[in-house]
């Protein structure tokens, strides 16, 4: 396995694990308070919708010329990566509330209780909330799997990494029968943000016609530089607003 393939697998695994933790919290909340069977039906329906999306978009993406694919995919990965990284930086600096799975679980469970008692075998509320939760959390992962896989010509590896992450999160979640509040989501999002940004920069520049010194060997250097810059931004924010606010752009 090459370095780029290993990075692909790690990026997809971490991104998928984070989104799976968030989706699991929603499913656990409606399943445990209302109807497990309807919640599972919602999960299956969402997974089917995601599979259709991947099957429909996959061939379209892989048929694009490599230059077009790299600038489009690089640009989109860069937008996603910078957004993940910005939120992770602000959370690490205490300027944005951290994702609290226990609090989200309690809020979802409270909302499920207020929606009235489930009647009959099929509970529409449980189905709809599970479907929406899994679909929305899964969309970004499906996109990451598709774009990473298409660019590296290895959708299979990306799919295996995504499947392994979901299987692990679901197994641990159901063994604990509780939201996975101890998963270091912010740290994982920080790492995923760095990796998405790294690949976005690399592929985007290649698609725009630039050549990297050393080819793929530039990837770890880029990742380290982006990680260091993001860590410095956290440090500046922790030291106080004037350090960051007084810099670039003033």
């Amino acid at each position: 396995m090459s370095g780029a393939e290993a990075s692909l697998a790690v990026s997809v695994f971490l991104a998928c694990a984070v989104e799976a933790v968030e989706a699991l919290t929603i499913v656990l909340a409606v399943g445990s308070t209302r109807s497990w069977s309807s919640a599972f039906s919602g999960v299956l329906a969402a997974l089917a919708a995601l599979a259709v999306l991947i099957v429909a978009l996959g061939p379209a993406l892989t048929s694009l010329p490599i230059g077009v694919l790299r600038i489009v995919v690089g640009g989109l990965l860069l937008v996603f990566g910078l957004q993940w990284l910005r939120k992770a930086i602000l959370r690490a600096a205490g300027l944005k509330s951290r994702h609290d799975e226990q609090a989200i679980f309690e809020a979802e469970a409270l909302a499920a209780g207020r929606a009235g008692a489930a009647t009959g075998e099929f509970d529409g509320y449980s189905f709809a909330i599970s479907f929406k939760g899994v679909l929305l959390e899964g969309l970004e992962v499906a996109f990451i799997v598709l774009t990473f896989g298409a660019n590296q010509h290895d959708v299979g590896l990306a799919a295996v990494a995504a499947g392994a992450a979901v299987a692990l999160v679901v197994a641990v979640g159901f063994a604990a029968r509780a939201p996975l509040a101890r998963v270091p989501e912010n740290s994982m999002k920080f790492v995923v943000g760095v990796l998405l940004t790294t690949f976005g920069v690399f592929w985007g520049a290649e698609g725009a016609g630039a050549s990297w010194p050393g080819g793929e060997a530039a990837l770890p250097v880029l990742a380290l530089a982006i990680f260091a810059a993001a860590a410095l931004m956290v440090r500046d924010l922790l030291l106080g607003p004037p350090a960051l606010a007084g810099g670039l752009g003033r």
Partner: protein
Amino acid sequence: MIRGAALGVWDFVVGDDWRTAAGVVAVLGATAVVAAAGLPAWWLSPLGALATLYRSVRRGSLG
């Protein structure tokens, strides 16, 4: 329904900070222009991406 779908795609791709997406387009556009001129352009995208991130974080830190 079409408007809803378009808003969904916009929200999915652009998210809550459209200036980050605009910055990415500008950075890759500048990289393409420099590369087309036959000059080394690889350095532009990491610097541009970090500058875009810095500005985005700064906006977020100011609320």
